[in-house]
C-alpha cells in the first residue's frame, strides 16, 4: 500500500496526475476498470469503463450510504488496484464542483462529503505505517503543536478533545507516547494502550487534514477559473453532479415520506409536515397577525423561529447539536422558500398595518433570524448568523403578554415548540389526523 491510497495530494498522487496527462482522457474507455470490478471480492457485477463514470458512481455511493442502504455494489471503490483512477476522478469531481457551482455551494459540499465518505472506509483498511507516512505528507508527526493545526479546529474539521496533547505538543508516535506516559501504564500493555488511544485520533486528524486540503484545492481552482477556460468534460461532470443529486435526493425523500407516517415513531430530527392542529394558542394567534405594537417581536422573533424549527427540526431541544444551520435540514431551501416563508409573510400581511408596508426592511431581519445574516436566502449565506431557536413561554409572557392565552396543555411545557411536539404525539395517539 502507498500513501496515494489515502492522499490525493501527496507527491505520489501528483505524479499519477502528471502521467495521466490531459484530463479529457477521462471519457475514454478503459477496459481494465471493469476487470478490476469483476475481480473485487463480494462485489456485485457492474459495468463501468470510464473514469468519468467512476466519478458518478462515487456520488451515488455517498447517497446510498447516507440513506443507510446496502453499499455492497461499491466495494471496488476501495480497491488498491483502482488507486490511480481514484485519484484522477477525485480531482475531476473537485474541479467540476468548484468551476460549475463555486466553493461555497451545496454541490461543493456534496463532493467533499462524497470524497471523505470514501476516505473513511479506506482509513479503516489502512495500516498504522501507511497512516503515519500519509500524515507526514502534511505535518511532522514527531513535532506538531496545537498552533500548527489550529485552523482545523477553527474550521470545525476536528474536535480539540479528540487530540492527545502534552502541553501544546501532539502525541502521535509510539515513541512519544511511551516517553510521556509509560509511568502511568504500569498495569497495561503499552502497545495496546497506544493503539486504543492514538489510532482513532490519527484517523480523525488525517481526515481533517485531507478535508481541509480538498477545500483549499477547490478555492485554488475557483480562482484559476478567472484566467482559463475549463475543459468541456469538466463542465459536463458539473452538470451531471446536480442531476445525480436531484435523483438521489428524491429517493431519500421518498424513503422518508413515501410510506404512511407512522405515529409511534416520530422522527423529530428531520423535516416533518406541519400539523397545524397541534400549534399552541400563541402561534394560532400570531398566524392571524396582530395590531401595531409588537409586530416585529411577533413575526420576526417569535413566529419565524417557531415555524422554521417546527417544519424542519422539531427535535432541536432534545439534541445537542451546536449551531444547527437551516441548510443542514433543507439543503436546497425548497421547504424554506415554498412553505415556511409564505406562512411568515402571510402572518406579516395580516398585521395591522401590514408589517412590510411600513417596514420593508423587516424581511431582511427575518432572513437573519433564519441564519442568512445580511444576505438573501441562499445556500452560501446559511449560518452567517445563528438560526434563532424558538422563544420560551416565559419570555413571551414578559414581552408580549397579549399573545399568550394558555390552555390546559400549556401547563406541561415551557416552550411553544415543546407544546407542538407533545401535542402532535397526543393527537396521534387519540387517532387525530396528522
Amino acid at each position, binding site marked *: 500500500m502507498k500513501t496515494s491510497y489515502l492522499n490525493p495530494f501527496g507527491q505520489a498522487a501528483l505524479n499519477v496526475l502528471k502521467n495521466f496527462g490531459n484530463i479529457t482522457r477521462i471519457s475514454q474507455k478503459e477496459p481494465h476498470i471493469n476487470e478490476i470490478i469483476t475481480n473485487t471480492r463480494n462485489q456485485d457485477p457492474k459495468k463501468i469503463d470510464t473514469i468519468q463514470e467512476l466519478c458518478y458512481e462515487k456520488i451515488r455511493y455517498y447517497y446510498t450510504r447516507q440513506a443507510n442502504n446496502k453499499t455492497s455494489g461499491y466495494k471496488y471503490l476501495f480497491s488498491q488496484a483502482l488507486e490511480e483512477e481514484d485519484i484522477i476522478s477525485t480531482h475531476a469531481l473537485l474541479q467540476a464542483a468548484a468551476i460549475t457551482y463555486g466553493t461555497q455551494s451545496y454541490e461543493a459540499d456534496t463532493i467533499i462529503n462524497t470524497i471523505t465518505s470514501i476516505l473513511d472506509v479506506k482509513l479503516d483498511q489502512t495500516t498504522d505505517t501507511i497512516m503515519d507516512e500519509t500524515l507526514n505528507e502534511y505535518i511532522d508527526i514527531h513535532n506538531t*503543536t*496545537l*498552533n500548527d493545526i*489550529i485552523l482545523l*479546529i*477553527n*474550521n*470545525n474539521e476536528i*474536535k*480539540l*478533545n*479528540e*487530540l*492527545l*496533547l*502534552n*502541553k*501544546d*505538543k501532539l*502525541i502521535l508516535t509510539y515513541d512519544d507516547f511511551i516517553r*510521556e*506516559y509509560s509511568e*502511568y501504564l504500569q498495569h*497495561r500493555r503499552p502497545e495496546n*494502550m497506544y493503539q*486504543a*488511544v492514538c*489510532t*482513532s485520533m490519527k484517523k480523525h486528524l488525517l481526515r481533517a487534514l485531507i478535508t481541509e486540503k480538498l477545500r483549499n484545492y477547490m478555492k485554488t481552482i475557483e480562482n484559476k477559473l478567472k484566467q482559463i477556460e475549463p475543459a468541456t468534460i469538466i463542465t459536463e461532470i458539473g452538470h451531471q453532479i446536480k442531476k445525480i443529486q436531484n435523483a438521489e435526493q428524491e429517493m431519500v425523500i421518498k424513503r422518508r415520506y413515501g410510506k404512511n407516517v407512522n405515529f409511534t415513531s416520530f422522527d423529530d430530527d428531520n423535516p416533518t409536515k406541519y400539523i397545524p392542529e397541534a400549534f399552541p394558542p400563541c402561534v394560532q394567534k400570531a398566524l392571524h397577525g396582530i395590531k401595531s405594537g409588537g409586530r416585529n417581536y411577533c413575526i420576526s422573533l417569535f413566529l419565524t423561529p417557531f415555524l422554521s424549527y417546527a417544519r424542519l427540526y422539531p427535535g432541536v431541544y432534545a439534541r445537542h447539536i*451546536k449551531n444547527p444551520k437551516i441548510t443542514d435540514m433543507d439543503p436546497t431551501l425548497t421547504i424554506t422558500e415554498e412553505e415556511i416563508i409564505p406562512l411568515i409573510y402571510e402572518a406579516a400581511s395580516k398585521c395591522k398595518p401590514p408589517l412590510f408596508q411600513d417596514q420593508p426592511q423587516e424581511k431582511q431581519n427575518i432572513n437573519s433570524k433564519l441564519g442568512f445574516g445580511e444576505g438573501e436566502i441562499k445556500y452560501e449565506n446559511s449560518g452567517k448568523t445563528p438560526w434563532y431557536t424558538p422563544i420560551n413561554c416565559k419570555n413571551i409572557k414578559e414581552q408580549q403578554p397579549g399573545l399568550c392565552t394558555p390552555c390546559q396543555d400549556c401547563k406541561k411545557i415551557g416552550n411553544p415548540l415543546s407544546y407542538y411536539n407533545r401535542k402532535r404525539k397526543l393527537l396521534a395517539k387519540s387517532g387525530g389526523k396528522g
Partner: protein
Amino acid sequence: MTEDQLLRMATREEIRQFYHEEYKTREIPKYITKNIHRREFAFDRIGKGPRDRFNQFRELKYLERTIKAKAPFAAYSSVALYDDPTKRSGWDGAEMVFDVDAKDIPIRTCNCKQGEVCPECLEQAKEIILLIRDNIQELGYKNIHYVYSGRGYHLRIQDPELLQTNSNFRTELVNYVLGAEVPELTGELQHFIIPFGYSKIYTNWFKYTINHLDKNKKYPGFSKNLKNDIIKRKELVNKNQWGLVRGEIKPTRYDKITRSIAGIHKELCDTKVSIDLKRILRLPSTLHYKVSMKCTAIKNIETFDPFDDAVPNFIAK
C-alpha cells in the same frame, strides 16, 4: 464590618462618592491602557445595563474624565481590539475569557438564594478559576491575567496565537478545559483508565463535581436515585476505585452519570462570554454597584482576598 454590610447594593450617592473621591485610573491594568484607543468602552448610565456603547478614548485621561463625570452604574471595555471601536469595525483579535460568576455556579455548597453571593461561593468561584487555570497551563498557554469582577472572577488569556481564533475554536477550548464533554473513547476504554490528556481533565472535574453535590439539591440530568447512588460512592471516587463505582451503579446508569456530569461542567463558567469575539467585560478599577465591590485586577491570585483587596472606602469605613 459585619456580613450584612458587605455585598449590599450601593446607593446612587455612594456611586458618585466613589468616583469623585477614590477612583483611580491607574488601577486599570496595563494590558488595557496600552491599546486603549483600540478598545470599545461601554457604560451603564441608569442601572439598566450597558446601553451606552461604541465609545472610544484616544488617551487614558479622556476615559478618566468621562468616568468621573458620569459616575456610571457600571463601566466596561471590549476584549477585542478594533481599527475603529466606534463602529466595531476592523476587528483585530480578542482575548479569550473564562467568566466564573459565583451566583451561577451549578454546584454551590453555600445557602445563597438565587442571584445572591456570599464569601463561601465567592471562594468556590476562585477555586474553579484556579482549576481552569491549571488546565489552560497544561495546554501551554502562559499569558494569563485575573480580574475579580465583583461577583466572581475573570480569567483572560492573551497568548498571541489565541487572539485570532474564532468562536469554533473557543467553544472547543471551553469544552476541553471544563471537561464539558464525555471523552469519546474506542472499545472498552473508560475515561478513568487513561490518566492523561483530555480524559484526565474530565476525570478531575468529575471528582470535583461529585464532591460538591448536595443530597438536598436538584441537578439537571440527575434523578433523585441516580444522584444519591453516586453521592453514596463519593469515597470510592476519591480513592480512584472507579471500576467498583461503575460496577455497583451498573454501566448504563454510570454512562448516564458521565453525560449529566459533563452538562454540569459546561455550566461552571459562562460559555457565552468565552466564545463571543466582541464581548465587553467589566472594567477593572470600577465599581460593581449591586454588591458594592470593586472590580479589581489581581496581582497574585493565590493570596487575593476580595474582602481585603476589593472593598471600596465607603463600605470599609
